[in-house]
């Protein structure tokens, strides 16, 4: 039973970054810009969020600042830094009409290097890890509850509970409404499908595409922090390919929010099944092999992704104008 609770709560905590980042990718791509830089944006978000937590740590320890308020500041800071970083992609691909894939690749190379350099600067020479303070987690104590440590409810609700989880629910609802119920969403989607049509009715395609990329920066930045929280071992200048996994989730989710939600949960579940394989009764154990838990099971989400992308490829429909720079015509 405890395993079940663990699996459910870990699934949710790993689904959160995937969902956030894939939703970010969705905003960018439906405005017409391929955002392959999500991995880099996540790294920047995670780095800056962790640094902010580090800076706020003394205040929290002194009791001058509530821990969850500090988390909120760190999360928003991570999002804001993601926005700033994504401006680089927007500028290259919208203003300069650069190849979006290459621009994104450059940013993916830049982010981890920048993270290492900054970690050195902040933590001192040779330091590669930024630790996460324990107050980042929401515990039963925050609700004035006392639950037995290791009980089902405790494991299900409070073992892996972060502010980012709550925030994700809010952001997801907001994103769905923004995309389908507002003037902004209609205009954004038109720019990813037929920017010339959008321009002909007076929509500023550049502005909408900037909006799409910057929203993806915001969600990607928060997603990066959420990933680092979920991974648990502190920030080490990497998000382990989650940005790319989120892209796959977005494609598998067919660029639609509800499908993306389903896809994120699905992938997170497989990731967690891999991690908990040794404690799940009916899973094969491969006792005679070495490195099973660190290398064999972690392959699972990638292999599943591959298979699913192949199986669903026929139904997949990308925004039509995605990847094509918009040219107003010669002026």
């Amino acid at each position: 039973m405890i395993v079940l609770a663990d699996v459910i709560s870990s699934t949710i905590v790993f689904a959160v970054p995937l969902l956030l980042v894939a939703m970010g990718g969705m905003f960018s791509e439906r405005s017409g810009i391929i955002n392959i830089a999500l991995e880099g944006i996540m790294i920047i978000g995670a780095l800056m969020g962790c640094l902010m937590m580090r800076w706020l740590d003394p205040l929290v320890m002194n009791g001058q600042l509530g821990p969850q308020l500090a988390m909120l500041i760190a999360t928003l800071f991570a999002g804001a830094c993601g926005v700033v970083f994504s401006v680089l992609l927007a500028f290259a691909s919208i203003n300069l009409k650069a190849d979006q894939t290459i621009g994104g690749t450059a940013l993916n190379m830049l982010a981890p290097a920048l993270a290492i350099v900054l970690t050195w600067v902040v933590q001192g020479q040779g330091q590669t890890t930024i630790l996460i303070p324990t107050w980042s987690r929401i515990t039963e104590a925050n609700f004035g509850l006392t639950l037995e440590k290791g009980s089902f409810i405790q494991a299900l609700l409070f073992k892996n509970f972060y502010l980012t989880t709550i925030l994700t629910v809010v952001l997801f609802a907001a994103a769905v409404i923004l995309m389908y119920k507002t003037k902004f969403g209609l205009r954004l989607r038109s720019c990813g499908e037929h920017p010339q049509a959008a321009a002909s009715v007076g929509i500023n395609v550049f502005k909408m595409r900037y909006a799409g990329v910057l929203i993806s920066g915001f969600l990607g930045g928060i997603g990066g922090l959420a990933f680092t929280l979920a991974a648990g071992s502190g920030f080490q200048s990497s998000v382990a390919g989650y940005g790319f996994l989120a892209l796959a989730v977005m494609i598998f989710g067919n660029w639609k929010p509800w499908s993306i939600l389903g896809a994120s949960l699905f992938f997170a579940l497989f990731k967690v099944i891999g991690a908990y394989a040794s404690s799940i009764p009916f899973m094969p154990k491969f006792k005679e092999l070495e490195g099973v838990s660190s290398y064999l099971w972690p392959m699972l989400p990638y292999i599943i992704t591959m298979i699913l992308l192949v199986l669903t490829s026929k139904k997949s429909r990308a925004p039509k104008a995605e990847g094509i720079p918009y040219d107003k015509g010669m002026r």
Partner: protein
Amino acid sequence: MSEYVIEMLNITKEFPGIKANDNITLQLKKGEVHALLGENGAGKSTLMSVLFGLYQPEAGTIKKDGKVVKINNPNDANALHIGMVHQHFKLVEIFTVLDNIILGAEPNKMGFLQKAEARKKVLELSEKYGLQVDPDAKIEDISVGMQQRVEILKMLYRDNEILIFDEPTAVLTPQEIDELMEIMRNFTKEGKSILFITHKLNEIMAVADRCTVLRKGKYMGTVEIKDTTKEELSRMMVGRDVKFEVDKGEQHLGDVVLDVQNVTVPSKLHSNNAVKDVSFQVRAGEIVCLAGIEGNGQTQFVYALTGLDKMSRGKITLCGHDITKAKIRDRSKLGMSHIPEDRHKHGLVLDFSLEQNMVLQRYWQPEFQKFGFIRNKEVRKYTDRLIEQYDIRSGQGAVTTARSMSGGNQQKAIVAREIDKNPELLVAVQPTRGLDVGAIEYIHKQLVAQRDAGKAVLLVSLELEEVMSVPDRILVMYEGEIVGEFDPKKTTVQELGLYMAGAKNMYRDVEKKGGAEA
């Protein structure tokens, strides 16, 4: 109060290397249909884009009701009640009709869409002007004629008073064209003013009050329609007398070259078939034209014929060989040449040089390669010959990048390449689309020369003038079926139109009659 609602005075618009509009003046009276006439590339679209705020002119002024205005973007144009139906519709295919109409002018409260009131207004407008649409249908599911109604509703929804129609009739049947003319007249009765861009003289004579003519970016004058003739207009447009006929030699029909039997092609978009049970033959020494409105299965049929796509049923025989399942390369080897509909998508590799493009169908032949290595000298020699023989003009000869060539010369290059292969069957799909009169005449001559040389030609065309003048036989396609066969000398545009619109079907009507008799 000025006599004119819109005046475009001495407009000059330059693009790198070309003056698209050179000191052009156009004055539009309230309540008139004003035609803007000119060949492809004469600068009509550029001028209208200036009026619509998509381009800024280098010189000249625009006046609305006598006051100078500045139009920087489509929003400014909209605020001045100027609306435009673009030649290539500006519609988002996966959106509904309603979403497309309100896009850019969305009724909203605090940014949240209020679609109910928009729907009411759209339905009222469509009722009032007889523009029936289903507001909840997706654009990709409705016909081209319906899509044009959506474009017109977009203007009406914005209460536009000055309506620009850019080549609106290209996608319509003759009957639909008549309806559109009627709608235009209704608009002018209400005091709306219309700018009607076209290169079709008949339509101008039928509907316009006045006409401004452009040629190669220059202003040729404005005339009253009641004081002019078709011939005079065409002289103003082209600068010389234009023959409307195509000279053809006597016909010498030969053997059957292409035999198409019961070809059926599934649609990519819906569960219906795009091409249904099509059968016909093309013989040596004749030009057969596949006519019809855009989107009635011609493209899919050509894809299946040339091997670009698979068919689900039927049989195709070329010169006695069954090519139903043959590869594209094998069809080419058996004597099929293909001038594709979209020269940028299929016809050319735009980033290749001209010479690389000229051997696109032949680079593998021994003439051009040895042990897998390309014989560059031979390629150059061959290209130089074609450039000479077919009068292909390009900046740097054989090494010019195809992208930098003009549309007419790109098309000439493709025609040269496909004809010089010496095919038994030439499939030419809309070979004159977007070209000026000189290039059109040239390409028509080449097609006729193939016929006179005893080759079979299958021409797919949307242009009625071309359909009536070039072929020896016309097949009309409607919703994937062949609905009639005609001799161009014995039929009329009106008769063809009834078939193109699906109002008549030669074969089904016969069946019905036969059924009744039996």
